[in-house]
């Protein structure tokens, strides 16, 4: 029987609202609190398992278990440093890391997993849940409905902190709790926004340029998703992001 008492503070790798991640030998344990429903956790494990089965380099799901009252997911521990850390440690290599970052995302887009949640559906729900007025939501839904429905794997939180580079220089992508299938440009728009929210508009610009260049995508094509991903992000209700996201959302269709 695993108990939480087994783990000491040294083993905590990461702690966030409702979740604690412990190191346990060659594995990690992601332990959830009561704010998560059973289906949330099972779903996360299932999604990650689906991604794992595509052959992408991701931590393997080892078990889903209950530790006392807490649901937990055990997966491989990936040794190494996140791309975010590496970028901070070696700012001179930032461009090279960014290029690798984009390559990894493109590699993910080259895979499909037919049973994953559908990105457009998720966005539709998020817009409905958002606190924007009816007119804005109507505009957003109209815009979303006209955007393409693709089937590429979209990570859903693709940022440098979710990529671990091992000592052997292999890249693993972690945290698949937001994964969906959909249009790559939507995921790119999201990453672009995450750079902005992380206070790095310069990296955001470089990223977008690189993404568009490498995938031969028109910038406007990615931009069309920006009000949508901003509206989706707004449902996280982070006060510090509010003004920024509102500005991104409040746009009109050309007539």
């Amino acid at each position: 029987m695993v108990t939480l008492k087994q783990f000491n503070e040294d083993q905590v790798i990461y702690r966030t609202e409702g979740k604690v991640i412990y190191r346990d030998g060659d594995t990690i344990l992601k332990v959830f609190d009561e704010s998560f429903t059973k289906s949330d956790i099972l779903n996360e494990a299932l999604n990650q398992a689906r991604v794992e089965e595509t052959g992408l380099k991701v931590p393997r799901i080892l078990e889903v278990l209950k530790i006392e009252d807490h649901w937990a997911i055990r997966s491989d521990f990936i040794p190494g440093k996140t791309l975010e850390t590496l970028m901070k440690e070696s700012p001179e290599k930032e461009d090279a890391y960014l290029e690798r970052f984009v390559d990894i995302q493109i590699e993910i887009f080259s895979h499909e997993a037919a049973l994953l949640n559908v990105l457009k559906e998720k966005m539709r729900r998020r817009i409905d849940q958002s606190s924007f007025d009816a007119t804005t939501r109507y505009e957003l839904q109209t815009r979303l409905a006209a955007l393409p429905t693709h089937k590429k794997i979209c990570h859903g939180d693709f940022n440098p902190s979710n990529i671990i580079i091992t000592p052997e220089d292999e890249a693993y992508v972690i945290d698949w709790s937001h994964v969906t299938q959909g249009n790559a440009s939507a995921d790119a728009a999201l990453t672009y926004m995450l750079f902005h929210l992380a206070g790095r508009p310069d990296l955001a610009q470089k990223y977008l340029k690189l993404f568009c260049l490498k995938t031969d995508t028109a910038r406007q094509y990615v931009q069309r998703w920006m009000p949508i991903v901003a509206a989706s992000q707004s449902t996280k209700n982070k006060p510090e992001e509010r003004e920024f996201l509102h500005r991104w959302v409040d746009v009109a269709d050309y007539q």
Partner: protein
Amino acid sequence: MSEKKYPVVDRLEALKKRLKAVREAQAIYAEYSQEEVDKIFLAAATAANQARLPLAKLAVEETGMGVVEDKVIKNNYAAEYIYNAYRNTKTCGVISEDKSAGYKVLAEPLGVVAAVIPTTNPTSTAIFKILISLKTRNGVFISPHPRARKCTIEATKIVLEAAVAAGAPENIVGWIDIPSLDMTHYLMSESDVILATGGPGMVKAAYSSGKPAIGVGPGNTPAIIDDSADILLAVNSIIHSKTFDNGMICASEQSVIVPESIYDEVKAEFKRRGCYFLDPEETDKVRETMIINGSLNARIVGQSAYKIAEMAGVEVPASTKILLGEVEIADDSEAFAHEKLSPVLAMYKAKDFSHALDIASQLIADGGMGHTSSVYLNERREKEKLNAFTERMKTCRILVNTPSSHGGIGDLYNFKMTPSMTLGCGSWGGNSVAENVGVKHLLNIKTVAERRENMLWFRAPEKTYIKPGCLPFALDELGTVNKRERAFVVTDEFLYKNGYTKQIEEKLTELGIRYQVFSEVAPDPTLACARKGAEQMKHFEPDVIIALGGGSPMDAAKIMWVLYEHPEVDFMDMAMRFMDIRKRVYTFPKMGEKAYFIAIPTTSGTGSEVTPFAVITDEKTGVKYPLTDYELMPDMAVVDSDLMMNAPPSLTAASGIDAVSHALEAYASVMATDFTDGLAIKALQTIFEYLPQAYDSAVSKKPAPEAREKMANAATMAGMAFANAFLGVMHSTAHKLGAFHHIPHGIANALMMTEVLRFNAKEAPTKMGTFPQYDHPKTLARYAEIARALGEEGADDEELLEKLIAKINRLKERIGIKPAIKDYVPDEEAFMSTLDEMTEQAFDDQCTGANPRYPLMSEIKQLYLNAYYGEHKEV
């Protein structure tokens, strides 16, 4: 304002119920007369017009966009101009009729129109869409934009109530009170047609709904001011248009492109009229305010220049009309290159007009495909520039010296252009409509087409000389009437050596006409031969061509005539197969501009002297080009039987039976007329009576002038018959039989003759020929008529057909023609090896088209087999 209460449509269930009511009302309205509809149309337009000011105020109050005074104009326009444009338009029942052509067009409603209304013109577009729906007896269901729902619904109610008061069914118009995308999608998928105005998202939704959609796309109108333009007019028109309703009309100018030479002058005029030029720093600020991630900031839409400047942190006078940003990049990385839906304008400096065109094309490609473009220039002096602009712009509206907001919607600055609040952008904009949308797009058109007979004509040479010895008299004309100076005589070696041309040469000499004789025409004349003759004509420059001989010299001379008059022609084109000579793809060159054409037959058979046909063989490929056009008809035919007195027996028989085939096929043709019938029957009667005598005379070499003369006339009459009624499968099969197995043309026809008669006479053929006059399989009766005319009697048509066939067989035997192909082609294997190819080519022969029975290839094959063995099997 409307006081009446209506059931609220705020969820799907309510929408379904209301939509059902509208559908029921429309079913009743569909039965209204034009008079009733016009009364309703007038009442609805009048009510909308009267409410123009309160509706404008309501729209500005609710949306916070635009200018009340300008919205009044839009409402007024949508009511008055739309009414005026269609007040007398027929939209109910029969809208046009041509009794003599048997052609009638009826208009019927489509059903229920789903009308999506944008925020930018929330009342005027509603008025417009309801009015054109009412005029066309459609029901209409309005889907307002949530930002403008109150004013859109108010406008809808006002128009509906006026329509109902004038007699329209109560629920003819419906609307969604609390719009949601789900309800809009449902409405679209349940309507009969969608009139979607708005952004690309809504238009896309409309096109994806599975229902016919008339959607329009975004505009990004560039305006070029050329150095020939009236600058005062240009700048002030643009200001007038761009400030109209704070720039919210989709056709409004977004960029001004000005050549260097007048740039400063244009800029000064803008400034003088209260426009503000942003400095580089201010330009950056406005850029950031205006466009967010490539999209338009919703807060600037329909705002004043002053307000937008304030939002951007730029200080400008409160009365500023337009903010101008002087920019260089025309692709959409430049914020000013986008559609701005506000009084903000980009200004580009162009090196010259051609550079200006490049900039304008780029702006359209990136944001306004198919919508509107505008140019200011001196339209009288600069036609080439205007043409270049028209050619380059991929827009459905090209406006010249016209404010584009007003110009695009039509009838304000050009009175031919359809007034409309919905502007189609064609396939460039992903639309099904490329023009201003109007009532015609909301009608189902029924075309009632009654059966009519095809027009036919009768054509022959302007003169046909007959009677023995007529030749010199006919040629006299060349000196007296026609005044010709140079004659070119085409004939074959035999005729030349035997002195047949002498009489002609003497006459020409007597008339003082210089002449040249070409006597190298061989049977089955070749292109090389025709080219050689034409080359000599080129040097000799004749003004009259005289063809003397049988079919070959006459055909060769016709081709030389073509090559002489039109050396540029391509035989492949001229030989292209056609269904109706009056509708053929190829336009035959005009003949007779250089030379007059006289045909003098020396045999009684081909009829070439009076037909529009000529056959020529390309000696290199072996391909036969059968050319047909009335341009090839000789101007004069001289049928002088003195020239035919010495025709040998085989020629007399082959050409005589050829004439029989012409008359038989012309009579059975789907294009036979009373004119050709008379000629064909008379020709047949004559031939059956005189051909045996003529043949005997050829054998015995005792002259038979009467028989020869009668045969000459009969052959020419048969020629006139088939020159106008055309031929059939007998000739299709004979052409290929002759070509593949070297059988004289007349004999080949004789060998196929009775098989084709039986084939065509079938009362229940696999397929019959297509021609309005040929209303049922009736060829058996036609052959019976021939039999009777030839003096046969019978109990019924079948018996008469058998008697006709027997009579033909007797004639063939009498003049020495053998009964079956195998008598001419004893090598059975050789025949069979060509059978499939012959069959296919015969099927595709020009003559097949006029045959009363449309043959299958398998049937033609069987015809050949039957004719080969001389044993009839059912086909």
